[in-house]
């Protein structure tokens, strides 16, 4: 965990308000998919926490949705620009547990909206371990869909759901699976809860408003079966059995 300077390689709109940014920099400390980075944006006080989508030796990919001042500024950034990034932060997904938990059925990765990006890195990591996952990507409508092709290009089974039925399976991500076994999910909290209710076991990634991102302020704490945990430090990924709703 440290701050370092990354250089923007590309910053392209995947959809009207969804952007993919590729950054060149030191990725050597990233230890698991599901970790995130905290990005300093010139002129704004707090850093912006964004999940890591993918990485290799010297490139980091993030996908973000324009939801406010910080991400609006990010969307206007051009290749060549440098960013002060703190990370990697958080625990990320525990691959050993996924492998152990998905002995009988393949692991199921479920992403909703901007909860999808970390599932991409996770799918790649599981493929590296020869544990091919199944993937469900949930959106509200067809105009919001991104990364379907990228997931398919990995060679994994991908189902897409849209709440309004304009593409793929009509309904929510839970409508695309009957008896989910070991699930890894990231997305809005109502989606996580619905998946949590159905899944036998799994790991769930949560969002929270944060200040520091590294455990200094307790701003993002949540209650778990094992006491208070900081989403930024002991999270953002929590085990199914410890989550309290």
């Amino acid at each position, binding site marked *: 965990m440290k701050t370092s300077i990354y250089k923007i390689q590309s910053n392209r709109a995947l959809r009207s308000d969804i952007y993919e940014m590729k950054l060149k920099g030191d990725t050597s400390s990233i230890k698991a998919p599901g970790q995130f980075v905290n990005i300093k944006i010139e002129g704004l*006080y*707090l850093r912006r926490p964004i999940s890591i989508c993918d990485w290799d030796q010297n490139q980091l990919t993030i996908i973000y949705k324009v939801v406010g001042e910080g991400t609006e500024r990010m969307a206007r950034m051009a290749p060549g620009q440098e960013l002060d990034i703190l990370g990697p932060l958080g625990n990320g997904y525990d691959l050993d547990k996924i492998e152990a938990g998905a002995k009988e059925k393949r692991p199921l990765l479920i992403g909703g909206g901007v909860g999808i990006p970390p599932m991409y890195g996770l799918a790649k990591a599981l493929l590296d371990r020869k544990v091919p996952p199944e993937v469900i990507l949930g959106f509200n409508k067809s105009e919001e869909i991104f990364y379907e092709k990228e997931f398919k290009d990995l060679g994994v089974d991908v189902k897409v759901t849209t709440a309004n039925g304009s593409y793929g399976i009509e309904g929510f991500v839970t409508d695309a699976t009957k008896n989910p076994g070991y699930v890894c999910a990231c997305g809005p909290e109502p989606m996580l809860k619905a998946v949590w209710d159905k899944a036998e076991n799994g790991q769930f990634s949560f969002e929270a408003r944060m200040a*520091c991102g590294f*455990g*200094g*302020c307790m701003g993002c704490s949540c209650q778990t079966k094992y006491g208070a945990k900081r989403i930024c430090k002991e999270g953002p990924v929590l085990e199914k059995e410890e989550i309290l709703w």
Partner: protein
Amino acid sequence: MVDTRVRLSGLTLENPVIPASGTFGYGKEYTEFYDINILGSISFKGTTADPRFGNPQPRIAECSQGMINSVGLQNPGLEAVINKELPELAKIYKKPVIANVSGFSIEEYAKCAEAMDRQQQVGIIEVNVSCPNVHDGGMAFGVLPESAAEVTKAVKAVTKKPVYIKLSPNVTDIVSIARACEEAGADGLSLINTLLGMRIDIKRRQPVIANKMGGFSGPAIFPIAVRMVYQVAKAVNIPVIGMGGVSSARDVVEMMMAGATAVQVGAANLVNPYACKEIIEELPLLLEELGIDRLEDIIGIAE
């Protein structure tokens, strides 16, 4: 070589830079960024008698040049702090620390202070009578001279360690409260705590923070902090630890010229985990540039 040492009630700090309570936990998280033994001292996370989860989410809101928090004194409680957190802190930080204590009653303040009095590593007890994030307590004691004095007396009665009262800026006349604490026996004062603030999400049409209001901190409040430190330091004869938006070595010098003997750094740690380290490294260079040989010489120098 410039002399950056400062003295706080018999304690000599190598430099005046202290991370502020609530922004530094018990130091552990920051050891991943630098050796925290360079710090003048550490004011660790506020302790209450019982464990507290704090306020509901969300607890953080961004502001121009600052932030609002409504963490609400989340801490594992006195017993766990003494038996677990402080021994761990002693392993990573070798100098005396500042024990920040809070309470919802005079008795709770005294109970926490009494327990901290027995901890060898505690050099100063900092009494938080000014947290804006807890109902029916916390700040209520700090907004009136009488109740602030009452807490001061109760804490002084149970400890021989220096007692610093951490004051709220959310008052009509901070000087009268400072004087009341001094008369009640306080060995020093810490100021300012956060300013009560609020943000509203204009899309949701609702407050950003679940608790509606919270404590505003960051560079935006620095001029208010300098003004209050200046007013209080001129009015009392006990040391003042100045804080509120301090983010650079220049801010440290300015705060000390206003009357602070030492300085706490809060929100800056959260946006730049290296903030204290950078300030400590920058300070001697800045002092040299300003022609200051001994940092203590500038305390309260501004007329």
